[in-house]
C-alpha cells in the first residue's frame, strides 16, 4: 500500500502556472467541421447546383422561359421537340418546356413546407417524449405506432378525398397536400428524434447543467437539440425528395393538384395516354421530377457523410 503515485506540490509549481493547450489551432466547432467536409464533397456541389436551379425555377419561372404555360396552340398538338418548342407540345398544344418550368413551383413548395412542418412537429413531439419519459413517452410512442399502421400514400389519399371540396385555390391545394403529408410523415421523424434524444440524455453534461439549476427549457434548447439534431437533418433532407415524389403521386392520381394548376404530377397524368405514341410528353416532366428527387437525396447523403463522424 502506498500513496506515492502522486506527490503534493506547491501551488506555484510550474505545470500549474504555465497555461497549456498545445498548438494555437483556431477554434473549430463540429458544425464548422461538417461544413468543411461538405465543401469537399462533389456530391454536395452537384446536388446543390441542381437544387439551386430548381428553386430558382420555382421563384422566377420567367427567367427560364418567356412562353406562357397556358398558351395553347391546338394545331401543333403532340408535336415533337423542335427549336420552337424545345420539349415539344402536349395534347392541348401547350409548350412542355414552359410547363415543366412552371410546374417546379408546386413540387418545391410542397417539399419545403412538408419538410419544415414534419421537422417541427416530429422533432418537438419526439423530444418531448424522450425528455419526459414515463406515460407521456408511452402515449406518444403508441400514437406513432398507430400512424405507422396506415400506409403513407393510402392515408394521404383518404385525407385528400375527405377534403376534396374545400381549399380549391392554388395555395389551398398545396396546403392540403402539405397537411396530408405532414400528418402521415411526422411519426417517423418523431421516432428518430426520440431515439437520438435518448442517446444524448445520459451524458454528464446534461447532469452538470441540471446540477447548476438550469430550467428544462434551457437544457432542451442549448444541450439536447443541438446534439440530437444530426440524424433528423439527414433524414429530413432525404425525405424532402420523397415528399416531392408523393405530391406528384397524389397529383397523378387526380387528388392532389388539379388542372389548370401546372404541376409535374398533373403533366404525367395528362400524358399517360400517349405513353407509346408520344413518349416525349411524359419523359420531360418525369425527368425533372426524378432529377429533383435525386438532387435532394444526394444532398441528404452528403449531409449524412458530413455529420456522421464514423464515416470520416
Amino acid at each position, binding site marked *: *500500500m*502506498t*500513496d*506515492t*503515485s*502522486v*506527490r*503534493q*506540490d506547491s*501551488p506555484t*509549481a*510550474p*505545470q*500549474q*502556472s*504555465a*497555461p*497549456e*493547450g*498545445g498548438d*494555437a*489551432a483556431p*477554434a*473549430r*466547432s*463540429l*458544425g464548422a467541421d461538417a461544413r468543411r467536409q461538405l465543401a469537399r464533397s462533389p456530391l454536395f456541389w452537384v446536388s446543390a447546383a441542381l437544387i439551386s436551379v430548381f428553386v430558382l425555377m420555382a421563384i422566377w419561372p420567367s427567367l427560364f422561359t418567356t412562353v406562357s404555360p397556358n398558351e395553347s396552340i391546338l394545331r401543333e398538338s403532340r408535336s415533337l421537340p423542335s427549336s420552337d418548342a424545345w420539349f415539344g407540345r402536349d395534347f392541348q398544344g401547350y409548350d412542355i418546356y414552359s410547363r415543366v418550368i412552371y410546374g417546379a413551383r408546386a413540387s418545391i413548395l410542397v417539399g419545403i413546407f412538408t419538410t419544415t412542418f414534419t421537422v417541427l412537429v416530429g422533432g418537438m413531439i419526439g423530444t418531448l417524449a424522450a425528455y419526459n419519459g414515463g406515460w407521456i413517452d408511452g402515449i406518444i410512442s403508441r400514437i406513432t405506432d398507430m400512424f405507422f399502421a396506415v400506409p403513407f400514400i393510402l392515408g394521404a389519399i383518404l385525407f385528400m378525398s375527405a377534403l376534396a371540396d374545400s381549399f380549391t385555390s392554388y395555395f389551398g391545394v398545396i396546403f392540403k397536400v402539405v397537411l396530408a403529408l405532414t400528418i402521415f410523415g411526422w411519426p417517423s421523424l418523431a421516432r428518430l428524434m426520440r431515439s437520438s434524444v435518448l442517446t444524448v440524455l445520459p*451524458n*454528464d*453534461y446534461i*447532469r*452538470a*447543467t*441540471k*446540477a*447548476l*439549476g*438550469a430550467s428544462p427549457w*434551457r437544457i432542451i434548447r*442549448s*444541450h439536447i437539440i*443541438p*446534439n440530437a439534431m444530426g440524424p433528423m437533418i439527414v433524414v429530413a433532407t432525404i425525405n424532402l425528395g420523397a415528399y416531392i415524389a408523393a405530391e406528384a403521386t397524389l397529383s397523378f392520381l387526380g387528388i392532389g393538384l388539379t388542372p389548370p394548376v401546372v404541376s409535374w404530377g398533373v403533366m404525367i397524368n395528362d400524358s399517360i395516354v400517349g405513353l407509346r405514341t408520344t413518349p416525349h410528353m411524359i419523359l420531360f416532366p418525369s425527368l425533372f421530377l426524378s432529377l429533383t428527387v435525386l438532387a435532394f437525396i444526394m444532398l441528404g447523403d452528403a449531409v449524412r457523410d458530413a455529420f456522421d463522424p464514423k464515416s470520416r
Partner: protein
Amino acid sequence: MPEVVLKANDLVKHYPVKAGVLRRTVGQVKAVDGVSFELYKGETLGIVGESGCGKSTLGRLLMRLEEPTAGTVEFEGQDWTAASGRTMRKLRRDIQIVFQDPYTSLNPRMTVADIIGEPFEIHPDVVPKGGRRARVQELLELVGLNPEHINRYPHQFSGGQRQRIGIARGIALNPKVLICDEPVSALDVSVQAQVVNLMEKLQDELGLAYVFIAHDLSVVRHISDRVGVMYLGKLAEIGEEDEVYSRPTHPYTQALLSAVPVPDPTLRGKRDQIVLQGDVPSPANPPSGCRFHTRCWKAQDVCKTDEPQLELRADGTGEHPSACHFAEPRQVVETTDVSGLAPDTRFATPDVADVGDENPAGTGVTEDERRLDDTTTESDHLR
C-alpha cells in the same frame, strides 16, 4: 470543532425492479441504504468502495440529481432535500459537482466560453453581463489553462485539460462544497497527479470542501482528510485518513487495503494479502445482519442476525467509527505517507513521484542492497 457544511442523515436510495407486462415492482435495488456522515468546512472526505457499492449514487443524492427514498441532506443546517424553487436555486450555487468522464461531461457543441459561462447565465446575478468573459478567462487561468483558448471546443483539448474545464465550471459559482465523482479515474496516472494537485491548490485558495468519490485508494489517501469505506450501500468504516489506512478495524477495509499493489519490490511476498471468497452479493437482495458476513473470515452467528452499527470502536491507539461486531485493528501492510516529503530532484517534473521510494534522497539503499533484498525474498518464497 470545525463547522459542518454538509450533513447526510441516513440517506437511502432504492430503485424499483420492475418485471412482467404490467411493470409491477417486484423488488428494490438498495443502491444506498442508510448512509450518514458530516463534511466539515474546507476538508476532503474520501469515499471509497468497489464498483456498484453505491458511491456514485451517493454523490448524485448529495447533489440532488436524484431524490432520496428516505433521509435528508443538510447544507449549513438547511434541509437541502426539502428545498424547492428559489431556495433550491440558491443552494445549487453552493454545492457543485465534477464528473468522472471528461469526454461526456462537456457539451461537444459549445465553446469553452459557453460551457464555463453557462453557470453565470443560469445565475445572472453572480457576475454582471459585461464581466462574464473576463471571469471565464480568470477561471481558465485558475485551473491552469490558456485563457486565450476560450473560443475552442472540447474536442480540441486532451482528457486532462477537459477535466480542468469541468472543474472550472464546477467552481464558477464559488461553491462551498464540490462533489467529485471519480474525477481522476478516467485519466492516466501522470495527468491524475496534475488534476489532484490542482484540486488541492483550489481547496487551499478557495476554501472548498470536497466529497471525493473514487475507487483508487492511493489517490483517496493522498487527497483526503477523512475517508469513508462503502460496501453494498452502507458505510463500513469512516475516520481520519490515518485511522482508516493504518489502523483499519473493519475486515472489509482490511481486505480492500491488502489488495492495493505495492510498488516496492523489496516487499514482494511479505505482505499479508487477504483474498475474499465469492462475489459481492446483489444489492437487490443484500444479506441479513452484517452485509459483509457472506465473505468475512471472522463471521459468527451474530453477524447473520444483528446488523452492526457504525459506532466508535477501538483501533489500537484510539477509536473511530466502524460497523463490525468484531472490530480489531490489523496492520495490512507497511505504508508510509510520503505526501509531506520533499519532491525528488532527480525527476524533471515535481508532480510525478518515484513510487514506493520511501527514501526521497534515494541514498539510503544502494543498488547492491536492493538486489540482496530481492534474493532474500525470492529464497523465502522457495522455502
